[in-house]
């Protein structure tokens, strides 16, 4: 049988007419189109010239020229996170590929679906230390979900389809296609996506009915339940958010989310406790600590969330639903682990809840909510405002006031205090509106990610909430914004310090501010001007509103340099390795024992 098949296949292969043959570069473009790609973020170079040539001769795929390959990846991430589609980047060999590594790692940590096509030296030169050769598959092996080195042009289409499938399914992540230059020139045949078979890669998506029945049974007996959800809900798509929102609204169970999951459950609902974790709210963290049943969906018990693992939610029955089996029991041992896609799990939970006629104990839930309301009254995000100095929290409150209930706002951030304040002070009511680098914590993420989001949503209001240190890590992307007339807004909370570093040094390192001062800052107004955008600076609370209006109305890219209190700290804060109930609130920061650590 097998032999017959091989003979027939060979005969078929031999009769391939000239007309069926395409160059590798054309195959790649065709495969991208078949995958529904409309935008690529990239930067050219010798090893990708044939691909750029093919791009030049078509009009379906738009190429966005970034100014640094790291930014191509972050832009692709912003595009992906704001649309739910796969983001695509294209870089050259050697330095192009190595520059992409930070972006790939970022996408890996945050489970963002990205395909990165890297040029490679011609296959006959691989291994010779050829000009601009880097061992891209070797270097990216552990910072990608998977990677391919394509040596045979007739497998290029197949591998491209595989790359997209792997990037977007299961636990999403980055996939690299390393494409030698000679393969881009060579001619071969095309394979359609539906002809690709997956032998070993088959993520488990369907939730087990017995496990769901057990979950419902246990949840219905809870007196102090809490839902802890994360980026996995956003990865799973809009439907998962809708199901979650409905289930929580119907059952009135308190819910908190990680930094990565913000927006999956609407912040304007009464069940919302705010973010949990190191800089999460008092009510969210204490609810985690005191709950008796913990349902985690699509979150991975990161150490910024758990604090000290031995003191983490000590008395709860823990249920964890995750599409990646290796997330379960990795950091925290759970009592019931369910490997499933969040949508499937939530669909089944809702159905089983109705079918099993499950109902929570009303008096117990009332007591639980009373307790939570007490915690809420602590008002943990309170800060002391000032008439003369702009407090960063106040700047964000004003920004939020201007955003109002607008539905077309996309927020990205850099990394640091401003990122945490943004998470605390800007509420998100829908998924895919919040883009931040959580797992890797990559300064320089926000501006390119905003560019990616703006490309995907040309008419939306896209704002990068930034720190003056982070923004300089990919500041060159202002040129990209200028080239494509992208009206992205950069809202800098300029405290003249690497604030997050300064905060740790103040609280944990005896106020020795080693190298954390933002010395020799550029004039951001002139900088914006130099790149062809609008720059505004404010240093008094009274100027904020006008400046924010001006920024929002600007049709060019705009930097609003908000000079804020240089010494403000971000609270609440759970020092690393402490329990949720050992959090420090801003009010007692002065009593904080600085010799603690």
């Amino acid at each position: 049988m097998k032999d017959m098949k091989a003979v027939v296949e060979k005969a078929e292969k031999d009769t391939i007419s000239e007309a069926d043959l395409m160059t590798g570069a054309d195959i790649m473009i065709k495969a991208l189109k078949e995958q529904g790609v409309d935008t690529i973020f990239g930067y050219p170079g010798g090893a990708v010239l044939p691909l750029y040539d093919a791009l030049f001769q078509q009009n379906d795929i738009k190429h966005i020229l970034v100014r640094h390959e790291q930014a191509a990846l972050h832009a692709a991430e912003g595009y992906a996170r704001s649309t739910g589609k796969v983001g695509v980047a294209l870089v050259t060999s050697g330095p192009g590929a190595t520059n992409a590594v930070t972006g790939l790692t970022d996408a890996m940590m945050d489970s963002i679906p990205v395909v990165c096509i890297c040029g490679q030296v011609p296959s006959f030169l691989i291994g010779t230390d050829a000009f601009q050769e880097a061992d891209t598959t070797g270097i990216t092996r552990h910072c990608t979900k998977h990677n391919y080195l394509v040596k045979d042009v007739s497998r290029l289409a197949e591998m491209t389809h595989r790359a997209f499938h792997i990037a977007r399914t299961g636990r999403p992540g980055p996939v690299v296609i390393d494409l030698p230059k000679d393969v881009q020139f060579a001619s071969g045949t095309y394979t359609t996506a539906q002809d690709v078979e997956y032998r070993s890669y088959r993520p488990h998506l369907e939730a087990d009915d017995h496990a769901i029945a057990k979950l419902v049974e246990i949840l219905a007996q809870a007196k102090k339940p809490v839902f802890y959800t994360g980026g996995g809900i956003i990865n799973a798509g809009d439907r998962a958010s809708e199901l979650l929102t409905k289930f929580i609204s119907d059952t009135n169970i308190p819910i908190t989310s990680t930094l990565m999951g913000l927006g999956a459950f609407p912040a304007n609902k009464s069940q919302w406790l705010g973010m949990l974790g190191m800089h999460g709210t008092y009510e969210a963290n204490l609810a985690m600590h005191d709950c008796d049943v913990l349902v985690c969906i699509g979150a991975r018990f990161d150490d910024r969330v758990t604090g000290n693992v031995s003191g983490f939610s000590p008395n709860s029955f823990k249920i964890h639903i995750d599409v990646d089996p290796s997330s379960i029991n990795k950091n925290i041992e759970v009592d019931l682990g369910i490997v499933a896609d969040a949508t499937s799990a939530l669909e089944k939970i809702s159905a089983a809840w109705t079918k099993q006629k499950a109902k929570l104990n009303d008096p117990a839930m009332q007591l639980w909510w009373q307790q939570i309301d007490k915690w809420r009254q602590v008002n943990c995000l309170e800060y002391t405002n000032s008439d003369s100095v702009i407090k960063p929290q106040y700047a964000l409150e004003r920004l939020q006031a201007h955003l109002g209930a607008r539905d077309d706002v996309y927020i990205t951030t850099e990394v640091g205090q401003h990122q945490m304040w943004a998470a605390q002070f800007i509420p998100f009511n829908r998924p895919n509106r919040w883009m931040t680098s959580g797992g890797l914590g990559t300064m320089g993420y926000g501006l390119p990610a905003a560019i990616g989001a703006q490309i995907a949503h040309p008419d939306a209001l896209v704002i990068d909430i930034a720190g003056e240190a982070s923004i300089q890590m990919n500041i060159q992307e202002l040129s990209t914004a200028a080239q494509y007339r992208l009206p992205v807004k950069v809202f800098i909370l300029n405290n003249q310090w690497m604030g997050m570093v300064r905060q740790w040094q103040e609280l944990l390192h005896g106020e020795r501010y080693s190298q954390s001062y933002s010395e020799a800052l550029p004039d951001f107004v002139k900088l914006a001007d130099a790149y062809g955008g609008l720059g505004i600076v404010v240093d008094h609370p009274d100027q904020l509103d006008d400046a924010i209006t001006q920024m929002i109305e600007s049709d060019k890219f705009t930097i609003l340099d908000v000079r804020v209190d240089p010494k403000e700290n971000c609270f609440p804060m759970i020092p690393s390795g402490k329990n949720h109930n050992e959090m420090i609130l801003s009010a007692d920061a002065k009593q904080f024992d600085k010799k603690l650590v």
Partner: protein
Amino acid sequence: MNSTPVNRNVMAKKSVYGAAPETTPEAAHTLSILVDNTPGVLAKIVGLFSGRGYNIESLTVAETDHDQNLSRITIIAKGTQRIIDQIISQLDKQVPVHNVIDLTILGPHVARELALIKVSGQGEKRVEAMRTAEIFRAKVVDTTIDSLTFEATGTPEKIDALVEMMQPLGLSQISRTGIAALPRGNDKI
């Protein structure tokens, strides 16, 4: 569990595969991993162990099905049950991995290793080495006036024991393959 979990004390002391220092009580598990025989697959799997700080005690890999392009990797890894479970799910999620079986948990399995053991010496020691080899059913595969090379197969414990016996008899070099293992009976993995 009438199979032969590796005797870790002997391994730790004598294995030439560099047993890690033991801190917490851990057990060695034999993992059988079926993978697509694609470039980089071994690097990916080995790198996963180093990147996450897991220990490999023994590693064997070879193509097992040419038509299907499959290889079997057999790894002895050491850790607490939780670490072993984590290793298995990390391995299982790699794209080229078809499946991972923990043979130690699965129960009865056969595990064999091949070793080449060179003993240098003359006279009484040489005779004694031959006698010892015979007890272990090791055969002589090379000989010179002052050296003998034996080929031995068996469980890792048997090889460990043989190595120990040869030590005072002029043991000079060892090369071991790492283990090959399959479940007993008709089980397919």
